[in-house]
Structures are given as structure tokens and as C-alpha cells.
């Protein structure tokens, strides 16, 4: 739930890149199933969110998994406006489209667009998936690192299996495997194999550590493929639990709960109100087991012969599944069944991959939602250069009663200068709390309060700041269209949710304003 340390933020990089030659290797057995993926992407502007930034070219790797589908990373094709796939050794690329994209676990499925392409792909032999690799077992990473034109293979050893952050999404954590091989930019989306079996998908590395790469292991990949089996990606569930890992190592703490020092278990500190665990699990509960797997005092369970965070069990469930927690509450040992379901709408300060961030422009004041992308407009050192309030809310808003019910955290991102807003107080990057004194919880409510309010003045109050914005409604009404025309603001609002990137539900291209 909390941020990874700053250093890790600096170090983790995705493996998407733009070109460089690689040594040709004898990969005849696999090469026909592996593709270089070339992408033209248009990211939305975060400060003028009705616009898109100039197109960027990039490339990654993908591999054939059967049924005319190519698997790659979500970050390879995020915000893609044009995608081609090129099989190693082929001359002509095939136009493709994003059929499914899962930003939370950084996976995507591509399909050829044209009949000839579909036909060609269907002839290929799909790569098959293996299981979670053993620690210290050798692996081979195959791809087009640094944008090279020929396949490259690098050898490595599995060095760690853990439940860790996937940086494409910003805050999501899933099972991952660390390998000590040189996974380079361009390897993104490429298969990592043992023998002929895929045991993971290369996806991120540590920029300042040589020969340290991360792969998405097959339990996460298989979960993704099961999730999209019904034609719709619903995503990983969020347990919403903040736990006090290690507390029950302390004998007196264990004794307080009537436990012996070797009983295991973790204490629950906080349960997010929007999570499927809300009301079922409570702060102060001791989680002793999940799906009959004992949880250690280190919050880990045995999984495929390794010890990993107990959240792995919950995280790999599909919507509609159930998780059974064994809980110690008030001295009583309970079995609590938690139905796995999507979280209720709530502010999520992850990366936004929608066609546009949610926004609303009123009187030339651009309001948008707080996201990791928005914070990154302050550059690589956003975690110290972005305004403190925004940085803090990104990680801790979930715990603050003032923001517990918020669907969005709304930020004044920009002022488009005009006479109507010439004298508003400087609230740039302020966080909206209320309109006309009424608390605002979502961008929809914000837009509605300003658009439909009837008082002579619209007033906007901000968190932690007593200097409100006051605007004469009649004057704003007379200037809104003029300002929007002058600055090219079309439309003046975008209130669709995160699912409006189309590809998330296999409907690429929908949802543009």
C-alpha cells in the first residue's frame, strides 16, 4: 500500500526502447513465434488534458500464444495509435491492434488487423507456458533489446521470487521473478524460457544495477489469460489491507492476543472502505491463514516451494472467486469468506492510461485528477520536486478521513489566462475540497456543481488553504466559450473513467472526445 523507497523509484525502469543491433543467435526452434513490435503512441497531455502529446515511436517484443494472439507488455502498447508486428526474418510487418490490455499487471494481447495477417499468424506454433521457475535455475531471455533487428538471447539465473511493485501501473504489486541477466530496453514483452517453455515475460529492470531484470511469472500471465477468456479484462483484485508485518514476532504482542510465539499471523492496521475486504476484515484482526495456507509473522505463505507475501494468493484470484481468511478476532478464531470483486470507485493515484485524464475546464481554470503521470510532470525527481500536498495524497489519501470518500482528488492544474480569472488567488496545484461550501468527491460532482449552480458567485474551496476562488457566474458563462475557443479546449470536460482507454475491454479506439 505504501510507496516503495525513493531509491527504488529511481532505479526501476521499463524495458521499452528504440533500437540498436544485437548478435544473431541460433533460435530456429523459437524464432518463428517471436515478434518485434513497433508502436506509434500518443500520450495525453497532463496539463492540457484535451490534447495529446506529439507521437512517439518505440519498440518491444512479443510472442505468439495461439488463437491468433500475440502476448506482450502493456507498457509496450500503452496509448498506441498504430501497432505493427514483425516476425524475426520476415520482411514486411503486419498491422496489429490491441485486443486486451491490462495496465495493472503490464500485459497485453495483440491481434493482426488484416485477414492476411491473421492467416499468417494462425500458421505459427504457439509458445507454451511452464510453471514458476526454481530459485537459481537458468533462464534465457529472448527479444529485440535496444531496438535491434535480430533476435537476441541472454542467459541468466533466477535470483529472487517476490511480491513486488509493477512500475507501469505505479502502485500495483504482484508476484514477480528477479533474474540476474542483462535484460535490456527492447526486451519488454519478450519470452523468458527454460528449454522451450515460457516461464515469464520480461518487463522491467533496475537502471543502476547491472544484470538485474524482472519478469512477469506464469501465474500472473495465466491469470491474465483466464481473466480475458470471457472477452473482458476485469483486473486484479485489491485486498485494501494495511498490515503490521512482523509485529507477532514479539512474544509479548503474541501473548496479548493469546497466541504462542510460533502461531504466525499478521495484524491488520487498516482496511480500505472501497475494498472487497471492507466490513469483513477489521483493524485489529489477526490474519492467521489464507485459503488454508498459514500466514507467517513475516506476512508470507508457502507458494510453489517459495515464501511469498500472503497477498499473492488474493492477488491471483479472479473476480467472482472467494478467499477464506482464518482470523483471530477478540480471542475468537473465525473463518471469513471474502468474495473477490472489483473495488468500489475510489481515488486511485496510479498511472492513467485513459485517452484523457478526467478533467473539467471552468473560467479558464483547468482542473484534473491527481495521478502518478501528473506528478511525473515535475520530472524524474517528482517525488521531491512535486508539491508536498500532492505527493503526500498520492500515497496516504486513503488513510485521511478528509479524503476517504473521494472518487477523485481534483487538482487545479493550470490557469488559461483571461480577464475572468485574472484576479483569482494563486491556487495552482491546490486540491479542491468544496464548491459553494459543499464537499466535492468526484470530477462529475465538481463539474455539475459549477455548471448548474445558481448563485451569483461560484466559490471553490481548497484543502489546507483558506483562500478560496470566487467567480461571478454570469461573467464566467459569457467567457467560457470564448476562452475555450482561444485555447482550443475541446471538449471542456472528460469525465469517463479509467476504462475508457478502449483496449482495456477490447474496444480500442472508443471513447475519444
Amino acid at each position: 500500500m505504501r510507496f516503495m523507497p525513493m531509491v527504488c523509484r529511481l532505479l526501476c525502469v521499463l524495458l521499452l526502447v528504440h533500437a540498436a543491433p544485437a548478435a544473431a543467435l541460433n533460435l530456429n526452434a523459437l524464432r518463428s513465434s517471436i515478434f518485434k513490435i513497433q508502436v506509434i503512441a500518443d500520450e495525453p497531455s497532463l496539463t492540457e488534458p484535451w490534447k495529446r502529446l506529439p507521437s512517439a515511436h518505440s519498440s518491444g517484443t512479443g510472442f505468439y500464444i495461439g488463437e491468433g494472439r500475440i502476448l506482450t507488455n502493456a507498457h509496450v502498447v500503452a496509448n498506441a495509435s498504430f501497432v505493427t508486428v514483425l516476425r524475426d526474418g520476415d520482411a514486411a510487418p503486419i498491422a496489429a491492434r490491441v485486443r486486451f490490455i491490462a495496465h495493472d499487471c503490464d500485459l497485453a494481447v495483440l491481434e493482426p488487423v488484416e485477414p492476411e495477417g491473421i492467416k499468417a499468424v494462425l500458421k505459427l506454433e504457439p509458445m507454451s507456458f511452464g510453471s514458476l521457475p526454481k530459485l537459481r535455475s537458468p533462464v534465457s531471455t529472448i527479444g529485440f533489446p535496444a531496438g535491434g533487428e535480430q533476435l537476441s538471447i541472454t542467459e541468466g539465473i533466477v535470483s529472487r521470487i517476490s511480491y513486488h511493485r509493477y512500475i507501469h501501473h505505479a502502485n500495483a504489486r504482484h508476484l514477480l521473478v528477479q533474474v540476474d541477466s542483462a535484460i535490456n530496453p527492447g526486451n519488454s514483452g519478450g519470452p523468458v524460457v527454460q528449454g522451450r517453455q515460457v516461464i515469464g515475460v520480461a518487463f522491467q529492470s533496475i537502471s543502476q544495477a547491472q544484470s538485474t531484470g524482472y519478469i512477469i511469472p506464469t501465474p500472473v500471465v495465466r491469470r491474465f489469460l483466464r481473466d480475458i477468456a470471457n472477452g473482458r479484462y476485469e483486473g486484479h483484485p485489491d485486498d485494501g489491507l494495511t498490515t503490521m508485518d512482523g509485529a507477532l514476532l514479539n512474544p509479548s504482542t503474541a501473548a496479548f492476543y493469546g497466541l504462542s510465539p510460533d502461531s504466525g499471523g499478521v495484524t491488520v492496521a487498516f482496511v480500505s472502505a472501497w475494498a472487497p475486504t471492507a466490513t469483513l476484515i477489521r483493524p485489529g484482526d489477526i490474519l492467521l491463514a489464507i485459503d488454508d495456507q498459514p500466514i507467517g509473522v513475516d506476512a508470507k505463505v508457502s507458494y510453489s516451494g517459495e515464501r511469498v507475501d500472503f497477498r499473492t494468493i488474493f492477488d491471483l484470484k479472479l473476480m467472482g472467486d472467494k478467499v477464506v481468511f482464518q482470523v483471530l478476532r477478540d480471542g475468537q478464531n473465525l473463518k471469513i469468506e471474502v468474495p473477490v470483486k472489483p473495488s468500489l470507485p475510489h481515488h486511485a493515484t496510479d498511472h492513467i492510461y485513459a485517452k484523457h485524464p478526467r478533467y473539467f475546464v471552468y473560467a479558464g481554470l483547468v482542473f484534473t485528477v491527481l495521478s502518478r503521470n501528473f506528478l511525473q510532470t515535475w520530472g524524474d525527481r517528482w517525488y521531491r520536486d512535486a508539491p508536498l500536498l500532492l505527493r503526500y495524497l498520492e500515497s496516504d489519501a486513503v488513510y485521511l478521513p478528509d479524503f476517504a470518500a473521494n472518487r477523485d482528488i481534483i487538482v487545479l492544474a493550470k490557469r488559461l489566462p483571461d480577464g475572468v480569472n485574472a484576479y483569482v488567488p494563486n491556487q495552482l496545484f491546490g486540491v479542491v475540497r468544496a464548491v459553494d461550501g459543499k464537499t466535492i468527491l468526484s470530477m462529475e460532482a465538481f463539474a455539475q456543481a459549477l455548471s448548474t449552480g445558481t448563485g451569483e458567485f461560484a466559490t471553490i474551496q481548497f484543502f489546507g488553504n483558506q483562500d478560496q476562488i470566487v467567480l461571478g457566474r454570469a461573467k464566467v458563462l459569457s467567457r467560457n466559450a470564448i476562452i475555450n475557443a482561444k485555447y482550443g479546449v475541446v471538449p471542456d470536460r472528460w469525465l469517463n473513467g479509467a476504462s475508457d482507454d478502449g483496449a482495456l475491454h477490447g474496444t480500442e479506439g472508443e471513447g475519444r472526445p
Partner: protein
Amino acid sequence: MRLWLGICLLLFVCGESGAFAAAPIRYEDQVVRLHVSKREVDPSSPWQSEDTVQQEFLGVVLPNGEILTTANTVANAIFIEMQRFGSTERGEATLVFVDYEVNLALVKPVATAQLLATKAVTLGEDIGMDESVEIFKGRDAYQLSRLPASLQEVAVIGAATSAYGLISYALKVQQNGLGWSEPVFLHGKLVGLTTGQDQNFVQAAPMLLIRHFLSDRHDQSYRGFPAMGVQLEPLLSPDTRRLIGAGSASGGVRVAEVFANSPFLGKLQTNDVVLAVDGVAVSEQGFVTHPTWGKVHLKYLLNRRFGGDELVLKGLRQGREFTVQAPLQRFDSNRAPVVTYSYGEPQPHLIFAGLVFRELSQDYLKQWGKDWRDIAPSDLLFTLNFANKVTAQADTRRIFLVRVLADPFNRGYTELRHKLVATVNGRPIAALSELRAALAAPVRMNGKDYARIQFAPAGEEVILGMDGLAEAQARMARTYEIKTAASFYGMP
């Protein structure tokens, strides 16, 4: 009484000035070097000090033999030595008086013989914009360097040693390494004392502050520099003016908040407009017009006043003018829950079972260096910036867990650090004394006593048994060489 002393001081200063007029002024006789040994409390181990450092400042000799310098000179000082220019002798000096809010201090030599070869400085007046002055910096042990400077700006800025808003000179100068209490002279008279430097601009305390400080000091009871306890915001927006009924008035600033300790609490309210302070009209941006300096922030008016003075405000509430009057209170930077400074004072702290608790302070956050406002832990910075409102209780503090002294007793919690304390044994905690009292009322469970310490905002909880606490703490005192038994909970 104060007026009479002020007149006496003025006459004395004029007399001195006359004596100097005949002969060339030798500034080296009026300025002394202050070699200061400083030692700060270790922020993470508040029972011990950090390494001692030596710094050098300047001071000027006053007619009564005291040395005027900045409070920055004496902050965290454990030993002060005074040295005349041209002399190799260093004599011990002691602190006479300091006001960290205004960043000024007085020291005096222990042996009056040290003053024999010195001459008192002549106090000058405030200077005008673009006026040329000289900043005197020690060149070596014998001479001062004269650095030409000119007054570019007069603005209210935060004091280097406190949170108080002070009127300050910005002097343009082509020299680095200034701001160590160097005196500023004009025509042989002291017109300022440097307090800091930002590239080519040196900040200096003007005579307005120095005279205020000295005259107040010569009274029997120091009344200090006051504040209104009111947050005022510019009132430029015509829409805001109309909304709060100030559309037809000219000038004035909006009352955004009246703090719990303000003398104007109950007399002013949010959205009142302050039109004039002390009979001086206030602009929409919060400026008043000074006869010499021009546009200056209205806080400057408070720099002229003393704690206890009556302040008269002319206001506007929903279109109706009113006048309100209240006695000002001496400003105290440490009145807020997050303490601003504690120079030379012991850092209040409490060690319970190896968990080190202390009051959150800016001193603590400053250990992250000059960029501390950006890179200190965000939970603590958020508390400083957004959860630091003055409350009715003067001793309200934010208590936090600094770190844990690892020991078998606190196994499982040794990685915890920088956690704000919410409750202890079910009681909300807003002072170290409350923490101590709450620990004395343990929770009973399964026939034993426990301490339950809960942190904000995520609700993490530490639960530790009270059995064996004394032995464990004695062991920690030995392991970590903590010689102050009083640092520990429950130890004599």
C-alpha cells in the same frame, strides 16, 4: 519609562557621535570577533549532542559595553570568545539576552578589561532605497574589509532563527560569504546587521528592529515583537470583493482565519476586510506605504509595536465599517504544535521500551539539509504544513516515534521510524506528558499489563508487555550508552 530611557539612549548616542566627528573613525575598535563553539542536540538521539563546531561571527560594541550581534551567533552556543581586531587575546564572553524571534542578541565580555581598547558604535537611522552603505567583514585578525553595498529592497521575510515575519534590507553586494552578523555602516554610524545572504543580496536587520530590541531590552521587562494571530489574504479579485461586501471600498485585505490564540478572536471573523492598521491604509495586496521605503507589507507595522500594545484595526464586514482594538501578544514561534526551534535547550523526549519519542520540530526536520522542506519524510512535512494549527492549549505538540533502539524486548518493531503517535492505551496524545501519563495506565489483557501505541494515519499498532520493562530498559541504557536515566519511561 520606556520613552525616557529611549531619550537617554539617544542623547548618549548623539554625544558619542559628536566625539567621533573630530577624528577618523577606526571601525576595528567598534567591531569585535566572536568565536563561538556550538553544539546541537543529536536529532535522532536527543539524549546526546552532536559534535562541537566552531564558527566566527562579528558584533558591535554598544555604549553600555554589551556586544550586539544576531541571535544566530548565539544559537546552540556553549562557549563564546571575544577578540578585538589587532589583538591576539581571546576573552570569554557570556550571553546577556537573546530574542530568537527577531534574530538579535547581546553578549558581554566576562572581564571588562577586554573593552578597554574598544569604542562604542554610533547608532544610525534607517536608510533609503538605493542608498550606498558599507558592510564590514573581517579581512584578518587585524583589519576589516569595507564592502560597498546598496539598498535594493525592503521586504518582510521570515527570520533566520524563527517563524516571525521581519522587515529586512536586501543589500546588493559583490561578495560571497556574508551574513555572519557583519555590521552595516553609513557615514560612520551603524545602520544594520547582516542576517543572511542569497547570491548577490545580503539580508540585514534595519535600525527599526535594532532600536526596538535595544530600547525594549533596556526596559525592565522585555515585551518583544508582537503578531495579530490573524491570517490575511490579498483581496484583488473584484468578484471576491463583491461577495464579501467590499465591492465599493478601496484597498483592504481579507481575513482568512483568526487563530485560536489571537487577541482578535471573537472580534474579527473570516471574510472581514481589514482596511487600516494603526490608522495606516492597507492596499488590496496587503501593503502599506512607508515614507522612505515605499510599498512594504503591513506586517512591518507590527515590527514597530511591542507585546501588550493596543492595536486598532479599521475593518469592513458585509459592507459596514467597524473599528476593533485589542492588546497584541508577543509572538512565539513555538506556540504551534510543531515547534520551530529549541536552541541550546534539551530536546524533550521519552524512551519507552526502546521506542524513542519526541516532539516534532523544525529542528528535527532540518537534519535533511537545506532542501529539508522537500526531502524530509512526507508524513512529517504534511504535519508541519497541514496539521499544525494553533490550538487553545499552548502546550499542544505533535509527538512522533523517531526510531527504535533494537532490543529483544521490542523485537518485531525495530524497523519502525517517523511515525506520528495517535493514541496510547486508548488516549489521544498531544504532549509528551500525556504520553507518559497514558503509559502509566496500561491495558490489562490475559492477566498482564500492556502498552498499546497506535500511529497515524494508517493505524499501525505496537503492543508491548510491561513485564520486564525495567530490566530491558536498563539493558538498552547500557547497550546504547544512554547515561540520562530520565530519558527512559519509569526510570528515576
